[in-house]
């Protein structure tokens, strides 16, 4: 079974993330890493292999030069090979262009049974790319999956929304995006880190994918960011130490603010 896991390289969420002059995410000024939520997708792919199915796992990323760090982590965890789509004209691509390029890469990889992705990237965080890829490829997409069973021909997934817990069945090939509830991603072992150095990483350009460079990037984006403003820091309020009356003081504050 051929599984593609989508891995995105993102600015570290615990660092000071900012924007560049053209209102795109600053990907140079901040250390990057594999979007943590994509580790769950890699782990789930590895688990299909652990369960006895013969799997080939390809980690796929689209992003600038540094994005290789994301595929490296996936290879260290246990993916077999990686594809990195990199092209100068991709800068500023919106979700639709990103999905179109990733869909083209999945097609070029060929005979893919399952595409596993994270529930959201930790920077853009729109949670739309997986469904868009499925739409471009004409495939089923099961999103926000908390429990997954993969057979030779189909996936069975449990997902919990506010109102209910659902069980979904979809025939392969399919796209599945998983939540951080689904598993506990493994840490790369020393053996895994050494093995990753020898694993193949292919670099593809838009020309390799047959995608028109005019259809992607900032100029082709179907949506423009007009303005970016840093949210004013919340000014710290008053803090009291409980001396037996902390709860009463809390209630008094709420009453003074007319919140009760």
């Amino acid at each position, binding site marked *: 079974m051929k599984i593609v896991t989508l891995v995105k390289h993102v600015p570290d*969420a615990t660092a000071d993330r900012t*924007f560049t002059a053209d*209102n795109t995410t600053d990907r140079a000024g901040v250390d990057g890493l594999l979007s943590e*939520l994509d580790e769950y997708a890699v782990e789930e792919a590895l688990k299909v292999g652990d369960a006895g199915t013969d799997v080939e796992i390809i980690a796929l990323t689209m992003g600038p030069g540094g994005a290789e760090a994301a595929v490296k982590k996936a290879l260290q965890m246990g993916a077999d090979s990686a594809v990195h789509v990199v092209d100068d004209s991709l800068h500023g691509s919106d*979700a639709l262009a990103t999905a179109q390029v990733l869909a083209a890469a999945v097609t070029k990889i060929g005979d893919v049974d399952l595409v596993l992705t994270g529930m*959201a990237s*930790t*920077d853009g*965080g*729109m*949670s*739309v*790319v*997986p*469904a*868009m890829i499925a*739409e471009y490829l004409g*495939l*089923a997409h*099961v*999103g926000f999956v*908390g429990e997954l069973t993969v057979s030779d021909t189909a996936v069975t997934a449990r997902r*919990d*929304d*506010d*109102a*209910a*817990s*659902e*069980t979904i*069945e*979809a*025939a392969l090939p399919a796209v599945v995006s998983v939540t*951080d509830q689904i598993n506990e991603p493994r840490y790369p072992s020393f053996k895994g880190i050494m093995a990753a150095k020898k694993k193949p990483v292919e670099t593809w350009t838009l020309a390799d994918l047959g995608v028109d460079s005019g259809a992607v990037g900032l100029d082709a984006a*179907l*949506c*423009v*960011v*007009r*303005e970016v403003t*840093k*949210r004013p820091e*919340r000014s*710290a*309020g008053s*803090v*009291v*130490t*409980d001396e037996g009356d*902390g*709860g*009463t003081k*809390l*209630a*008094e*504050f*709420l*009453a003074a603010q007319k*919140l*009760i």
Partner: protein
Amino acid sequence: MAEILVLVDHVDGEVKKTALELLTLARRAGEPAAVFLGSGYDAARDTLGQYGAAKAYVVEAPELEQYLVVPKAEALAQIAQSSGAGGVLLTSTPEGKEIAARLAVKLGSGVVTDAVDVAADLTTTQSVFAGGYTVTAQVTKGTPVITVKPNSVTPEATGGTVGAEDKVAVAFSDAATKARIVERKPRAATGRPELTEASIVVSGGRGTGGDFGPVEALADALGAAVGASRAAVDSGWYPHAYQVGQTGKTVSPQLYLACGISGAIQHRAGMQTSKTIVVVNKDPEAPIFAMADFGVVGDLHTVLPQATAEIQKRKG
């Protein structure tokens, strides 16, 4: 004036508050038209009219309930194309976003998710990077597809009625029936307000030590929803549906009380835009105090019950 389509969230015709919020926003930009998918339209008609739906498109088909989102996306795409709509508004739920994603591809339109405001020209406001930045954006091509977070606007009634009703027949494609819903187990109701819609949220974290009793009691005294940090959810103390944060719910209530929660960036991402923030934590160095309008350094197991009792006394 162009029609602005609003996808109506409902349970068997019982219209959700979020749909009324979308109708209120749609009125700014054009003529609101409700898109009602599934059964139960008769029960919804009056409410939709009262909140400004000038028109309603109704699609009833078993596929809408039997298969995951694609039938809904196809129905909406067909209506958007035939009506020449000026925009489509959906709620920012996992389902709403997924429909929006597919719809945007089908229409070749730009999409904005998680808007907290929509202006008359469909310029959107979003909060990004864990609430650290506010961004305004505009879809420049196609029919803008916008998902809006719950609680972004107060629903305003117009007292109107639905003027025109259009029962639409949709021919679903093969792709529409690829992901089948084999089982759906509704969650038991808690009797508390819904987390994303509540005007007050009381959340508990690892500091509860697993006992959510004091958090729930305070929530009930305030008529609030209960939330939880991921640490509490991962420990199995509270269901994931109540997690607040990056991989849980984003809430933006009038009042947020964080009890025994340290304030990690992933948690802040889900509550940073709350109007008033109150903190109870025994560690004065906890980062969450930096964003508190009012904080109590103390043990939540004594502070919360006292606050609950005092609130009940004041409410009489």
